[in-house]
């Protein structure tokens, strides 16, 4: 999977993530390789606990404790530059989070801090990543204002722009009341930006909503706020972690429509995590199927739906309820990842399981251009492709 480097916005290589819990070490992600192509929508599907979310947390190098990346490389590319997230210092990664790579959460209610106004929570990201831009705008606005305070503000902001660590500005920022000279005009600009953004999210009366608290908004509105936060700094890659799972069906449709629309408008790459095959078909260009910490199949959406190769992918597709067809589920349950099955992790639930599956772990191989599968049933096919 190395030939497409130029087009890749994100590359995950040989990624291992472990969670060190009291019950034991959870092998949540076990040797994942994944490329995200610039501009695409990549859907990641899998059951709960398959490692979808954890893989994408690793893409921001923020696997929540007690989890840790124990092996592997995560590379993010922008403008011909390479950012190896697994080797960068935290302070540098922080500059990418929220600006280059941002994230939408499954439960908007939980992702918003209950004690702060929603508008301020959106503005927070802007004030971190687009501070200089806001300062410039503040100076522009202040130009037309007369009086002692605006001119004082102007000189302070001007100073801070010219020299980042200006001692006078740093001192001022620590003094209550006086620091408002610095922050007030900047925050005013951030507010304008947020209100504009909220409008773009289809939130009615955004100026009023800015001052509301999360509990005063519906689930759909909360998710729009979370999306606004994620988009506030024009990210290159947006990771959406089951953003509609906890919403009503009608609201889900609205949010999906909004996300498609925004993807076009902002020209970003979207990584969409879900366990809902219907949403995957609706949203994505390519699909990666995960099972128990492994990627078992990758391909474009039509191939995955029409010609699935991995028994697990087939099982997932057959489990979609459809009129006139008996519902078929995959026997067994997701394995315990503290003691995962040997060899192929799917073999205890697989109807085609062979002896080899219990001993060896199948590699992810390309069976036809752009279609990768990790299953011994199709390894011969892969060899043919390579020879031919």
């Amino acid at each position, binding site marked *: 999977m190395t030939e497409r480097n130029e087009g890749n916005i994100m590359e995950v290589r040989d990624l291992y993530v472990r969670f060190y819990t009291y019950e034991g070490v959870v092998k949540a992600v076990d040797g994942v390789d994944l490329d995200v192509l610039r501009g695409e929508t990549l859907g990641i599907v899998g059951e709960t606990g398959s490692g979808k979310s954890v893989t994408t947390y690793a893409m*921001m190098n*923020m696997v*929540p404790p007690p989890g840790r990346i124990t092996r592997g490389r995560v590379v993010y590319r922008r403008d011909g530059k390479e950012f190896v997230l697994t080797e960068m210092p*935290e302070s540098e990664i*922080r*500059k*990418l*989070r*929220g*600006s280059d790579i*941002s*994230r939408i*959460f499954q*439960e908007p209610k*939980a*992702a*918003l*801090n*209950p*004690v*702060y106004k929603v508008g301020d929570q959106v503005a*927070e*990201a802007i004030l*971190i*990543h687009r501070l200089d831009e806001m300062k410039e705008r503040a100076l522009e606005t202040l130009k037309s204002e007369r009086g002692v305070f605006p001119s004082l503000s102007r000189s302070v902001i001007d100073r801070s722009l010219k020299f980042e660590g200006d001692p006078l500005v740093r001192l001022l920022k620590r003094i209550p009341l006086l620091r408002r000279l610095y922050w007030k005009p900047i925050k005013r600009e951030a507010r304008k930006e947020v209100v504009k953004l909220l409008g773009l999210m289809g939130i009615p009366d955004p100026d009023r909503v800015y001052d509301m*608290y999360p*509990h005063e908004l519906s689930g759909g509105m909360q998710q729009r706020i*979370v999306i606004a*936060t*994620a988009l506030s700094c024009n990210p290159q890659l947006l990771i959406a972690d089951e953003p509609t799972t906890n919403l009503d069906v009608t609201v889900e449709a609205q949010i999906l429509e909004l996300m498609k629309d925004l993807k076009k408008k902002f020209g970003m790459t979207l990584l969409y995590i879900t366990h809902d095959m219907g949403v995957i078909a609706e949203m994505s260009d390519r699909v990666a199927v995960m099972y128990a910490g492994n990627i078992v199949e990758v391909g474009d959406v039509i191939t995955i739906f029409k010609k699935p190769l991995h028994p697990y992918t087939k099982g997932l597709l057959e489990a979609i309820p459809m009129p006139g067809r008996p519902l078929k589920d995959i026997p067994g349950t997701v394995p315990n990842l503290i003691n995962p099955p040997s060899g192929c992790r799917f073999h205890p639930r697989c109807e085609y399981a062979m002896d080899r599956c219990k001993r060896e772990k199948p590699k992810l191989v390309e069976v036809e251009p752009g279609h990768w599968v990790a299953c011994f049933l199709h390894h011969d096919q892969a060899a043919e492709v390579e020879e031919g």
Partner: protein
Amino acid sequence: MGSLATYIARRLLLIIPTLLGVSILIFAISMVFTPEQRAALYVTSPKAASKIYQIIKKYGLDRPAHEQYFTWLSNVLRGNLGYSKSMNIPVIRAFTDLWPTSVEIAIYAAPFIVLVGVKLGKISAIYRDKLPDHIARVLAIVGWSLPTFWSAIILLAIFYGWLGWFPPGRLGPEAQAIVRSSEWVTYTGLYTIDALLNGNLFVFIDAVRHLFLPVLNLVIVGNAGIMRVMRSSMLEELNKEYVLAARSKGVAERDIINKHVTRNALIPVVTMAGVLVAGLMTGLVITETVFELKGLGYWAAHAAEQLDIPSVLAFALFTGVVFVIANLIVDVLYAYIDPRVRLQ
């Protein structure tokens, strides 16, 4: 913030029925005593004691309970709380003489207890299961398990007996002479504040020196509770998804803790701090005894020993009022910190 103002207004109105409830409860307790015992509430001098039956008649102490309640309440409201036989002065005078001692200790100890507890709890949670956490937890456990009188005596032994820095009592002899002189104006009865208002630095320093040990002792003994609540509350909040969300926005770890997590974690701490401060105002018997301070706690304990019913009832009333006010402050702080509380 408009909703915050209406919330406070609503909460203030609620205080009236609460206080009435407190007064009824205390009156009900006093009804356990015989009319003769209750007549003591109105005996304001040793001489008047011989006219006890006239007093019973006069105040209607043999009348039905609800009538008695109203006579009692109107007397209380006029400051007529009876005569304290343990102090040999009217209760109201004993009260006005003694409250500054207790309140002065409480208002200095409370912020330190809360600040130290919150800070330790925070450190403990941030460095969970690492050295700072272990140190903070050991300190808290030690403070929690120390008997107040024991640590007070040890502190006195070291800082007074051995080093001679911080004496017991409220003021040294020289300062006391100044306070008793005619030039001294008493504004509040709290020596530290009065000293500053009188512009007398000597008395101020002397008062602070005398306050230091009792306050320190209360901080050592009292911060453990706050620390433990803060720690567990911080740990709980740190696991919430909004922390991940803030991190994914690029917020620095320090800001996540100070801005996002602390404010949420403080919510349960506020409740605990309210009860603690109210308790400090009214329950300092041991501290006052060891440090030779004559305050409300000392008075209440002596009054109870000598079956000085008027004093005990007055103290109960005071305790009730203090807790009602503390609860009010807690509720307002709650609403300030957590906007969800402001709804109904």
